[in-house]
C-alpha cells in the first residue's frame, strides 16, 4: 500500500524518560486520557481491563526499609522500529507504521478486535475496549476533535498523540510550510509532566533530547535484546533501576547487545 516515492522528510520520533525525575504524580496519564478521548473506567473495570495508553508503574529494588528504594516507570507504546511485533501479526493491516514519522499507529475502523497484537506486544502497551465507551452526561463536550473516539471491541494504544502531529502539519501548512518545526509537535504527556521527566523529539535529529539520551551510558531501553528497536529511552543514575528495566545491562550501563 505504501507508494514507491518516499516522504520528503523521514523522522524517527522517540522519547526519553528520566525516571529519576518522575514523582509518579499521574499527570501524564490524565493528560493522555484527556488528549486522546479515552473514556473513564466502566463499572467493574480493573487495572487489567482498563484503558491506560500511558501507565506509571511503581518499582522498588526488592529490599526492605531502610535499604528500600523505589522508582516510577512511565510506560507507553515503545514504538518498535524493527520487526514491530504488533504490525507483523495484525491479520488485516489495522496496525500501521508510518515511514514518515516512525510512529506505530492503530486504525480503530479497520481493527476486528482479534487481540493477536496484544499477545504479541512484549510491553503490554495495547489495550482492548471491553466496554462501550461512556462519558458522564455533558462531558462529551470536552472531547478532542483531533482524535476519533473508539468503539467497543477494538484495540487502542499510544500513538505519540498523532492528532497533535496532524494539527502541527496543518498549522505549518497555514504558514505555507511543508514540514513542521521541532517544537510544534509535542505529545500530551510530555507537555503535562510537571517534573520535565519526559522529553520528545526526532531520533534522526542529533540535537533532539532523545538522540542525546540514546548516547548516554546511563540510558537504557526496555527488553532491548528482543531486537525490536524500541524508540523510548529510559535514564537512571541508579544501576538497580537500569537492571530492572533491562536485565541485559552491564554494570557500566552500556547495553551488552542490541539483539
Amino acid at each position, binding site marked *: 500500500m505504501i507508494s514507491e516515492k518516499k516522504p520528503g522528510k523521514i523522522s524517527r520520533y522517540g522519547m526519553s524518560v528520566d525516571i529519576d525525575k518522575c514523582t509518579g504524580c499521574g499527570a501524564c496519564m490524565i493528560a493522555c486520557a484527556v488528549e486522546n478521548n479515552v473514556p473513564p473506567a466502566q463499572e467493574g473495570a480493573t487495572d487489567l481491563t482498563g484503558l491506560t495508553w500511558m501507565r506509571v508503574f511503581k518499582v522498588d529494588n526488592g529490599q526492605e526499609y531502610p535499604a528500600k528504594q523505589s522508582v516510577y516507570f512511565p510506560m507507553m507504546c515503545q514504538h518498535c522500529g524493527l520487526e514491530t511485533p504488533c504490525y507483523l501479526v495484525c491479520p488485516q493491516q489495522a496496525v*500501521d507504521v508510518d515511514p514518515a514519522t516512525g510512529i506505530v499507529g492503530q486504525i480503530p475502523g479497520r481493527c476486528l478486535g482479534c487481540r493477536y497484537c496484544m499477545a504479541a506486544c512484549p510491553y503490554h502497551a495495547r489495550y482492548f475496549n471491553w466496554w462501550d465507551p461512556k462519558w458522564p452526561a455533558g462531558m462529551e463536550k470536552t472531547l478532542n476533535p483531533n482524535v476519533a473516539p473508539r468503539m467497543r471491541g477494538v484495540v487502542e494504544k499510544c500513538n505519540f498523540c498523532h492528532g497533535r502531529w496532524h494539527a502541527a502539519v496543518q498549522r505549518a501548512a497555514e504558514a*505555507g510550510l511543508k514540514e513542521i518545526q521541532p517544537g510544534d509537535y509535542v505529545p500530551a504527556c510530555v507537555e503535562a509532566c510537571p517534573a520535565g521527566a519526559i522529553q520528545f523529539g526526532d531520533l534522526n535529529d542529533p540535537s533532539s533530547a532523545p538522540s542525546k539520551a540514546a548516547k548516554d551510558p546511563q540510558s537504557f531501553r526496555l527488553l532491548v535484546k528482543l531486537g525490536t528497536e524500541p524508540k523510548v529511552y529510559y535514564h537512571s543514575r541508579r544501576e538497580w533501576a537500569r537492571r530492572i528495566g533491562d536485565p541485559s545491562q552491564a554494570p557500566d550501563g552500556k547495553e551488552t547487545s542490541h539483539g
Partner: protein
Amino acid sequence: MNFSGKVPILLGVLASLCAGWIGFPRVIYKSRPQPVEFSHPIHARKAGMLCVDCHAPREDGTYAGVPPLSQCAGCHTANLGPTAAEKNFIAEYVKTRREPQWAVYARQPESVWFSHTSHIRIAKLPCERCHGDQASSDQPRPYQEDRISGYSRDIWGYKGANHSRRVGASKDEFMVVPGMKMDDCIDCHRQEGLEHSCLDCHK
C-alpha cells in the same frame, strides 16, 4: 432434464438481478432536501463572490465549513430578490434567528483527518477538484444518506451518482461531482506519490 425444468431457475436469477441492480440502489439511501433553496451561481456571478468569502479556513488552520446564519444575515437583512426562496429564507431563518440545518454532502467520517489548509495552501488544489463546479449548481440537490452506515452518498456510495443541476439546465441534465470516497483520495495521493501510511489521513 428438459428445458422447462430450468425455466423457474432462470426466472429466479432474472428476478434477483433486477431487484439487485435497479431496486436496491434506490432503497439503500434515504434522501432529504436542503433547508434553503440556495443558488451558488447567483452569489458567484451576480454578487461576484468567491468560494472563500463564505467557506474560509480559519487562522488556526481549521476549516469553517458552511457559514453560520449570522454571515448570511450580513447581507440578507431584508429581501434582496423577488424569489420565493429568498422570501422563505428571510421569514424562516433570518427573522427567527434559526440556524438552517444544512446537510453537508462532503462530511467525512469521524475517523478521517482532512485538512483543507494543506490541500489549498500546499497542494494548491482548486475547490472544484473535489467539490465539482458548485459555482454553477443552481439548486442544492437533495442530501442522500446511506440507511445502514449513515454516511453521505458523496463519501460512501455509487460513483458518478452525485449530481447537481446546472444553471438553466433541464430537469434531467446534470453535471457530475467527483467522488470523495477513500479510493478517490488514494487515487490522487498515489499519483502524487504522497501515499505513505493510513495515519496520513486517519485519526
